[in-house]
């Protein structure tokens, strides 16, 4: 194949492969760089298409946290995403273990039903949820998002965890049983440590989904004090002025933790994205 030929001179560095790779990198990274540099542009510089801020300023970051309640949005997003992820992991590990390893009947129909629920578009359920929450006084509260986020992310988490539990050797559990450990204890101290990668994958998927969710957050928690980051960023400013600098400052702050998380756990993310394709 062409690749195996020895290349000489500039051909070694400039060939179809490096050009295509560079184009890919630029395509992904340029808009992100534009967002980062724009977050450092002052009120005058933001209304130009200058490549670099002139002068560089952190006024936008200051604005986001003082003039706008961006710190409140971050707090809301963290509380809701962490709580929903914790619930998903706790319930998902138990259900995934049961569906992966215990001799229950009708497992397959149950798994298919879970799959159908996980693809259901959110728009189909927000109206009844909104009306119910209105009646029981849950609109603009943390539980208004924690509970739906947990429920809608559980099916996918159960699938991922079940796949990991299926792959753990059975001897491990037997040891626990013979030692007389309780079932819950067997799961907790013997099976769970083996399924750690699965727990990471399920956790990071759930967290990312909660962190980025917009439609439900917009419908149920539109009051300023209960807005999550996506709602806050979408509704920044007024109808007449869009404070782009502040929006991008907030966006950078919101994007950094999740990007760091995804980069640290990139193997888990990739295995989650491909769990069907690869293991199927």
């Amino acid at each position, binding site marked *: 194949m062409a690749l195996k030929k020895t290349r000489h001179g500039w051909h070694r560095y400039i060939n179809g492969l490096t050009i*295509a790779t560079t184009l*890919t990198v630029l395509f*992904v990274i340029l*808009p992100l760089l*534009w*967002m980062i540099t724009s977050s450092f542009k002052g009120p005058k510089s933001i*209304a*130009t*298409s200058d490549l670099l801020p002139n002068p560089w300023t952190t006024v936008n970051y200051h604005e986001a946290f003082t003039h706008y309640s961006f710190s409140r949005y971050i707090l809301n997003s963290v509380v809701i995403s962490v709580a929903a992820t914790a619930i998903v992991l706790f319930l998902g590990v*138990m*259900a995934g273990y*049961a569906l992966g390893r*215990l*001799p*229950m009947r009708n497992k*397959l129909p149950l*798994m298919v039903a879970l*799959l159908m629920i996980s*693809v259901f*578009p959110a*728009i*189909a*359920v*927000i*109206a*009844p949820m909104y*009306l*119910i929450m209105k*009646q029981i006084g849950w609109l603009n509260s943390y539980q208004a998002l924690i509970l739906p986020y947990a*429920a*809608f992310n*559980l*099916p*996918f988490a159960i699938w*991922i965890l079940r796949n990991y539990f*299926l792959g753990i050797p059975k001897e491990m559990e*037997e040891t626990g*049983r013979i030692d007389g450990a309780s*079932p819950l204890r067997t799961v907790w101290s013997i099976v769970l440590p083996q399924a750690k990668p699965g727990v990471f994958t399920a956790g990071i998927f759930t967290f990312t989904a909660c962190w980025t969710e*917009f*439609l439900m957050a917009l419908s149920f928690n539109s009051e300023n004090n209960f807005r999550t980051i996506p709602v806050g*960023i979408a509704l920044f400013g007024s109808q007449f002025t*869009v404070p782009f600098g502040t929006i*991008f400052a907030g*966006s950078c702050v*919101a994007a950094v933790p*999740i*990007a760091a*998380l*995804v*980069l640290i756990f*990139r193997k888990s993310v*990739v295995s989650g994205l*491909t*769990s*069907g*394709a*690869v*293991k*199927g």
Partner: protein
Amino acid sequence: MAIAERVEKPPLPPEPPAAAIPLIGRPDAHRRKLARLGWMFSAPALVVIAVVTLFPIVFSVVMSFENVNVTGSGYQFNGTTLGNYNVILNNQTWRYALGFTVLYTLITVLVEIILGTAIALVLERLTHGRGWMMALLLIPWSLITVISAQLWYYMYDPSYGIIDRILHALGFGNPVILGTNTSAIIALMVADVWKTTPFVAIIVLAGLVMLSSDVYEAAEVDGANGWTTFWRITFPLLRPTIALAVLFRVLQAFGLFDLPFVLTQGGPGHATTSLAVLGYRAMFQDLKFGPGAAVATSTALLVVLGCMAFLRVFKAQVGSEGN
């Protein structure tokens, strides 16, 4: 969703786990005990899912057949009706939104699959830094869609947006990108392609890496060129992976909401009003919960039907390859 394909493969490991467990006492009793334990373990999750998702789904269908009145503190149903569906079926905007959503889904998914596969093929050849490239591709995937919508809105701005400037420099005059129907739709698609192509590329890349290198060596011996190798060998082997990526993306694209809601507000006019945006507007801006529920229910129905049809076709394809 990633496991769609698994469901379609009937031979799930048939051997029940209990069989391998050293049984104490009567086997049947032990098995039953374990099964009961299984239901106990999964009950909390299943109850939460049923109450929070299934119940609203059913409620939504019921609501789409009701005259709904929203009051200050709650809501009332005032009689059953087919009127909600009548309203949407005779509504120009709904018909347009349906057409727009279908067209948008088809075009963006097609472009993303082609570009994503191309990127995956390039990355697969990299000997150094493939891990970092994958990490880079994950960043747009993890970005909040609302943020990318604001970013593209800024870049499309008619007076100082960088893309507007670039088009101007290329001799396109001074286009108001989000101001005319066609260009607004294209602009929306470009923003979508930017955010989701990396996701497709990662799925396809993972599928590529799994392919055995033997087949390529055989092709090389046979003197096949790159293009022939791709169409005759790589693509057929990759088909299940690509099908999975398509399913993922179609389902996501059909529920399109965040991007047009922030980037174009569904405009200009109704040009970029997707079904989800229309349903949201009907319910939360016009407070017409009945017709809104009808839009939402019909969208969900289309998604489920599409999903089932897809799995059918896909299963047939896998079956014919299996022989």
